[in-house]
């Protein structure tokens, strides 16, 4: 029986889908059998981030309505065969699926795959209820902003109410430079409020935008990026390894010192 992990946040735009794509790919690179499930019916994006948009023939709704078999709807990744995507229907809304159907789908997937990563939509309505229905673990993604943290806190409460006790926190898009001058909440500030185990910290990185537009998850890129390495480390931690947290602060302080030195001299 594979692990069913929902990636959720409450607030939109904090990087749930980016996180799902990268962790999924990183786990696949560790030779795990991974299925990423897009639970964002009506606003699906996961296929875009993985660059698999034009391979989608059937969707989860087609499976549920009996128009195809589950295996037919699964899109195998073009780079790693052990990563597959179960796409959401773009032409439907979140109300077209109910938690019982989601449970049925995911139970079938969990029999075959080591990891079932469910990408939850923003919000706490039907789409969220569907996404968490079958999950036994959760990854809560937040950014170091008061609004995102507030929503994440609410979501953690809802997860606990739904008996999902094992959840990990990812703090995304942190800018060490801003934290250093106290313009941004620090990792400690966030963990102090949310009080769940920290799974990883991902720095804000322009390369994420490039990788999204290209449909190539960061963890695939040949030249290592800070954000890519952070996602790889998260995947390793998820897989049970003990990995040190990236020391973003010192590294970036040094970089910025050098940068500042040069900008000042010019």
């Amino acid at each position, binding site marked *: 029986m594979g692990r069913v992990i929902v990636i959720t946040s409450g607030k939109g735009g904090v990087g749930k889908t980016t996180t799902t794509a990268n962790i999924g790919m990183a786990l696949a690179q560790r030779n795990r059998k991974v299925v990423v499930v897009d639970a964002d019916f009506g606003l699906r994006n996961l296929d875009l981030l993985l660059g698999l948009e*034009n391979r989608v023939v059937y969707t989860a709704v087609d499976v549920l309505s009996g128009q195809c*078999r589950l*295996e037919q709807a699964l*899109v195998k990744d*073009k780079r790693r065969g052990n990563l597959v995507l179960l796409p959401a229907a773009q032409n439907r*809304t979140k109300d077209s699926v109910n938690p019982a159907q989601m449970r049925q789908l995911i139970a079938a997937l969990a029999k*075959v795959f080591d990891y079932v990563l469910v990408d939850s939509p923003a919000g706490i309505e039907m789409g969220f209820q569907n996404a968490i229905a079958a999950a036994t673990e959760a990854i809560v993604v937040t950014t170091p902003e008061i609004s995102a943290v507030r929503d994440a806190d609410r979501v953690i409460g809802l997860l606990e109410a739904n008996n999902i006790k094992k959840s990990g926190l990812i703090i995304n898009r942190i800018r060490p430079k801003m934290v250093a001058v106290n313009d941004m909440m620090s990792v400690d500030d966030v963990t102090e409020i949310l009080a769940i185990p920290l799974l990883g910290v991902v720095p804000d990185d322009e390369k994420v935008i490039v990788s999204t537009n290209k449909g190539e998850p960061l963890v695939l890129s040949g030249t290592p990026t800070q954000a890519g390495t952070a996602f790889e480390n998260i995947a390793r931690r998820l897989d049970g390894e003990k990995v040190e947290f990236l020391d973003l602060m010192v590294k970036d302080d040094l970089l910025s010192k050098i940068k500042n030195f040069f900008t000042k001299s010019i």
Partner: protein
Amino acid sequence: MPSDDPILKPAAKSEALSAEMLKPEPDQSLSDNPPIEALDPDPMASEAVSGTETIQVDKKIDKTNNDSEVSGTNQPKETPPIDPNLQVRIKTEKGNLCIYLPSEIKKEGSIISYAWSEIIQQIQQRLSGDSRSWDPNTPVRILANDRLLDTTQIQELADILVQANLRLKRFYTKRRQTAVAVVTCGFSVEQQTAQQALMTETTTNPLVADPMYVQMTLRSGTEIRHDGSVIVMGDMNPGSVVIADGDILVWGKLRGIVHAGAGGNAGSIVMAIQMQPSQIRIADFVARGPSNVPAQFFPEVAYVTPQGKISITQAQNFTRS
């Protein structure tokens, strides 16, 4: 492993699933070659090859395990039309505008048909995009079939029709409860017996339906299904879908997914002013769009070659027997 799981029949072993995975496109894991080489950036080069270019990867959609479509895919007559009950349909019949609401499909105890909000959305989209097909103040019949409607929903429908300058004439329903609700709202209703409903269903399903005109930009998430040909006057954005039993003509940019000849007719074609699809399906064939964008566009036609591949050629070179 228990075999009573309804949606994962063949996965008795985990190997079975990975092997069976993705029947529609078998060579996913291969190179990143764009399967459609049709849209060569250099038009001269493509003309040198007789102006016709072939898409590399075409594959029949695996429908063999789909119980309703076991019969040979080469006989279009035998394949059923696209499920007409799946979406809201709007038709003009004898001066009336008929709005067919999709029926409630039940499966294994749960309902998977459209939610009411989706139905309202579809009606609104269709009424705004298809308005050239009827005159203002056209009387409207709403065929609710077996769908249960309450008074607020009926009022919602009536309001939409008023906004669209249409006159609600009569409801048709199979359910007594709906009929009562309609009367409560002050509209006229006709309750059909199951047999009557069956009769109307067959008479409204001619072999070849009238073409459907859609005058709007089809945005992501919009899906148009029609049991005839579809003419889109506007662009199809990525994420939009048109599924037609006949041909599909896009007078604009085709960037979404098109499925022509969905009933199984491989002779169907797709035409577009600017052909840039993310996926083309004709009958049981599927082809992926190119990943690179050509420098220049020409009106183009996609069709199935006798060799069983989806090809794209410039419209001016397109001649068929």
